């Protein structure tokens, strides 16, 4: 699954594999280093997944505890970061089931009605506009966008995180993009951020 990666991404993964091997032997410094490396990704991923800042640190810590316990069982079939995201997703799901805090009814697969951003975005900055748009998508779709565009994960890796078929990951990415487009452009044009950029700067300046 790492054949398509460039040398830099491969090197980073190799380094993290080394850290995991050390963790499997009980090395706490290696654990700290790995946690530092994945902290931001983990927090962001959990935020998109739970759609809340509440408890995401607890879930992240919980995830890393599992990493500590399961380090020896890592089979090396994916990138370390992908493996950790998969654990995080399962922990978050468990948490959501336990707390029954599934946010709103947006736990489907993106086929719910989406509204145009025209009115809402008028009061938002560009960055917030995207966050707002992502919050309009289903959980799976917004997480897929996060994994693809922030983490640079391939569809195979996204499938690994969600523990779903690659075809499902591809479909999710496709529909997530489509819905994002609809949010901004009524589905007629590709995301037209160029116009928004001007508008946002005007609003923010």
């Amino acid at each position, binding site marked *: 699954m790492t054949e398509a990666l460039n040398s830099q991404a491969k090197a980073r993964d190799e380094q993290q594999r080394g850290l995991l091997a050390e963790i499997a032997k009980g090395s706490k410094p290696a654990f700290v280093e790995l946690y530092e490396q994945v902290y931001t990704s983990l927090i962001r991923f959990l935020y998109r997944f739970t759609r809340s800042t509440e408890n995401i640190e607890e879930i992240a810590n919980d995830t890393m505890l599992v990493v500590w316990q399961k380090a*020896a069982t890592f089979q090396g079939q994916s990138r370390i970061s992908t493996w950790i995201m998969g654990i995080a997703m399962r922990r978050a799901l468990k948490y959501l089931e336990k707390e029954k805090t599934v946010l709103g009814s947006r736990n489907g697969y993106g086929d719910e009605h989406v509204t145009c951003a025209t009115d809402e975005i008028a009061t938002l900055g560009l960055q917030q506009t995207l966050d707002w748009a992502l919050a309009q998508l289903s959980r799976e779709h917004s997480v897929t966008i996060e994994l693809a565009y922030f983490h640079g994960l391939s569809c195979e890796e996204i499938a690994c995180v969600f523990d779903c078929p690659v075809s499902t990951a591809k479909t999710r990415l496709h529909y997530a993009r489509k819905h994002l487009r609809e949010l901004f452009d009524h589905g007629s044009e590709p995301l037209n951020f160029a116009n928004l950029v001007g508008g946002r700067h005007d609003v923010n300046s």
Partner: protein
Amino acid sequence: MSTHSTPHLQHEDVEELLPAYLRGQLSSELQRAVQEHIAHCQQCFLKHQEADKVSQLIQQPPAELEHILTGSRKAENIQRVLAQLASEPSQTDKPKFYQFLVRPFLYWINAYRQAAMSLKMTVAVQFCLLIVAAVVLSQSYMSTDVNLQQSGAVEYRTLSNMPVDLGGKVVDSTRLRVIFEPTTSEQDMRAQLLPLNASVIDGPSDIGVYTIAIPKTVSVGESIKQLRASTSILLVEEAVYQ
């Protein structure tokens, strides 16, 4: 710009690879292939622009997360986990039986889990094939059975040469197969057999063969000759299986 695809990548491939391309995570070959494709394809160029904007915007963490992503908060969280680890035995602290028994066991459980799906599929397919084979065989057997019953072919005949009761007296006998004219009456048959002291012990078969028994005391050759002389008898042969 035309809308052709490069020899290596289709439009949908490019669309899928764009996020990783924009993050510079693809291998140099793929990176180049995507670059060449979007340089010649208007459709994918627009998608590239769109993906580029999303990719740039998404790099900024959501405002709500800023306080959680600060260095001090990160350090606090790491310390919190370390404190939890302190109460947990480290991998090396675990007893020897864990190292030598539990860990290999966990390894095999894990390997099994990965193989489980393919194994389950194989077993399921084999089970289905067995069921199908069983159904086909049973139906085939039942239809054969019904056909045989309908045709009356299932009829077993005793071909032993045990002594038979001939005229109220159990004697050793020789068997002959005889075919009478279809119009021969029972009375005529008796008339043919009586002089030889013979009795019908079986028949007629599907093809009209009677088995008759003649006492050993009577010459077989003579009996056959006598019977063959009769116009109401079409065939007389000594039974191969007595």
